[in-house]
């Protein structure tokens, strides 16, 4: 395949927080670099799949909308994820399918109907420099994506020109994720769940939690009933960790793990979350549900349900199998 750089569009309005993402980087946790990547990775992959791209081809993650792009080239795009009201030249356009665009056309994304993040994928994928094996923007360090930052007015985006022709293709309804609210998230208990009182773990599962406005790619904060910790005995862990019963000696934070500082709120570790921390964690969201966290909005209600580890693996294998087929094969 011949690959050459090509200007695809200009950012007329960048929106609140739009940035380049791919599926993220791996293997840098011990250096303090989280995996990052498109938060709703399922929507992201489905968009690339429709375009016939590599699943990892870089696109734009749009938070809440307010975006306007003007195209320079005749090409194909796909919009997936949360429905933030995409329009081309002011006409609403369907999501979850390939769309042709021509020079001079304007794509606007604003007017939310559901979800929180939309994904804009381009045939061939966006051409930005790779940082530690990924084109994903990591804002905290200011690396990846377009100069390590969110999109700004006037940015010119390039794509890798793909010589393969894109066809009109849509993602079948049954493959599209169903977003809440209501949100039901499956978690595997583990880590420090034994530090919580039994009643607290019951309360955790029976309660309805509310997502707070302090929610971003680093973490999702939820408010609900207070959780309590057992009194500790013997071990020096307590001395090393800190005075509060929710403190533990600093350790790695799995993606999707749920920590509970002071028992007063929950924080779910997001794709750009801290690699380590010193708060007790009661469990971890199953990886197959992690993408859903990218669409939960402040104010939304969330319920947690425990899942056995075997279910977590089974769901993950099932989810992966979707992306191992060609779209044509699925439609047959």
């Amino acid at each position, binding site marked *: 395949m011949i690959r050459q750089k090509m200007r695809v569009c200009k950012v007329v309005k960048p929106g609140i927080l739009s940035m380049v993402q791919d599926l993220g980087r791996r293997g840098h946790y011990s250096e303090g670099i989280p995996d990052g990547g498109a938060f709703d990775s399922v929507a992201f992959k489905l968009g690339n799949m429709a375009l016939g791209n590599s699943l990892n081809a870089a696109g734009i993650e749009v938070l809440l909308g307010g975006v306007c792009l003007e195209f320079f080239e005749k090409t194909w795009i796909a919009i997936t994820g949360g429905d933030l009201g995409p329009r081309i030249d002011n006409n609403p356009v369907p999501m979850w399918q390939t769309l042709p665009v021509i020079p001079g056309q304007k794509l606007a994304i604003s007017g939310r109907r559901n979800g929180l993040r939309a994904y804009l994928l381009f045939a061939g994928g966006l051409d930005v420099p790779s940082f530690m094996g990924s084109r994903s923007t990591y804002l905290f*360090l200011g690396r990846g994506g377009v100069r390590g930052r969110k999109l700004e007015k006037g940015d010119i985006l390039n794509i890798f020109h793909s010589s393969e022709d894109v066809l009109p293709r849509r993602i079948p309804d049954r493959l599209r994720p169903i977003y809440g609210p209501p949100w039901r998230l499956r978690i595997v208990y583990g880590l420090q769940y034994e530090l919580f009182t039994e009643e607290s773990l019951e309360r955790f599962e029976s309660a309805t939690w509310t997502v707070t406005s302090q929610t971003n790619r680093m973490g999702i904060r939820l408010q609900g009933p207070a959780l309590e910790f057992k009194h500790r005995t013997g*071990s020096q862990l307590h001395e090393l960790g800190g005075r509060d019963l929710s403190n533990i000696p600093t350790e790695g934070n799995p*993606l999707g793990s749920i920590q509970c500082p002071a028992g007063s709120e929950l924080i779910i570790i997001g794709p750009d979350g801290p690699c380590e921390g010193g708060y007790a964690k009661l469990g*971890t969201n199953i990886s197959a549900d992690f993408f859903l966290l990218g669409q939960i909005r402040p104010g939304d209600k969330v319920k947690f349900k425990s899942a056995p580890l075997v279910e977590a693996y089974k769901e993950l294998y099932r989810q992966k199998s979707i992306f191992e087929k060609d779209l044509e094969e699925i439609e047959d």
Partner: protein
Amino acid sequence: MIYKEPIFHIGGDSFLTIELGDDGSLFLNLYILTLEKMIWGSDIPGLIDTTALRTTIMVHYDPFIMQAHQLIQKLKDLIAKGVEVPKKFSSRLIHLPVYYNDPWTRECAKAFGLPPNLEIIARENNISVEEVIEIHSQPIYFVSYTSFMYGSFGTFPIAPFTILKNSKYKTPRKWTSPGTIGIGGTTTTYYSIRSPGGLMMLGNIPVKTFDTEGRHKFFGEDPLLIHPGDMIRFFPIDGEEYEHIKENIDEYSYKIEESHIDSTKNEGL
């Protein structure tokens, strides 16, 4: 103490945390780093990364290659072979300049309604600010972890083992100047990036601890200066020296000595 049997904690379907002991001793740290090296030297498939902290190693694994129960068995077998911490644990001693009580750190404290944090620590320990600086810059520190943020490190004093009493911010600061070192308990931590923080701030380090753009010739293949298992000595500099280093940041000549740690001397916490 190091546990006879490690405790395995399930972190969902892609992470596993191995708890190896419950003190913050230097020996436990060296044990953890030795085991981490053994894990990477083994034939365990599907490893993505390992994050060693003061009492644990978190293993990030590929769930399409390995499941938790298989990984636990393989790790148990590996540990059963024996984790031999070398008597002379090879290390490097890195000398880092610190402008203690610098204007930016004082300004940051002021922005959050506090006096210079060194003054708070001096008062808490009933000594002068100069004595705090002297006590802090005296020991050799052991780098326990670097996963706090890119280019950061968490250290504790090993020789001599010194204690400076300190409290934390009641509510975390919204920001900390990049380059700040802070103290929490016996741990001295480096904030490489502007970020929130709750530790008392001691001063600022002018030199780079990472260079992903290859501007400084010291950083070749490895963009990071400091790794777990290294040792650090902080030496005080004044404002003039600080400015001089900052102006010539990409020509700074790092002072690093090949060294080792005597693992039979068990200090720290």
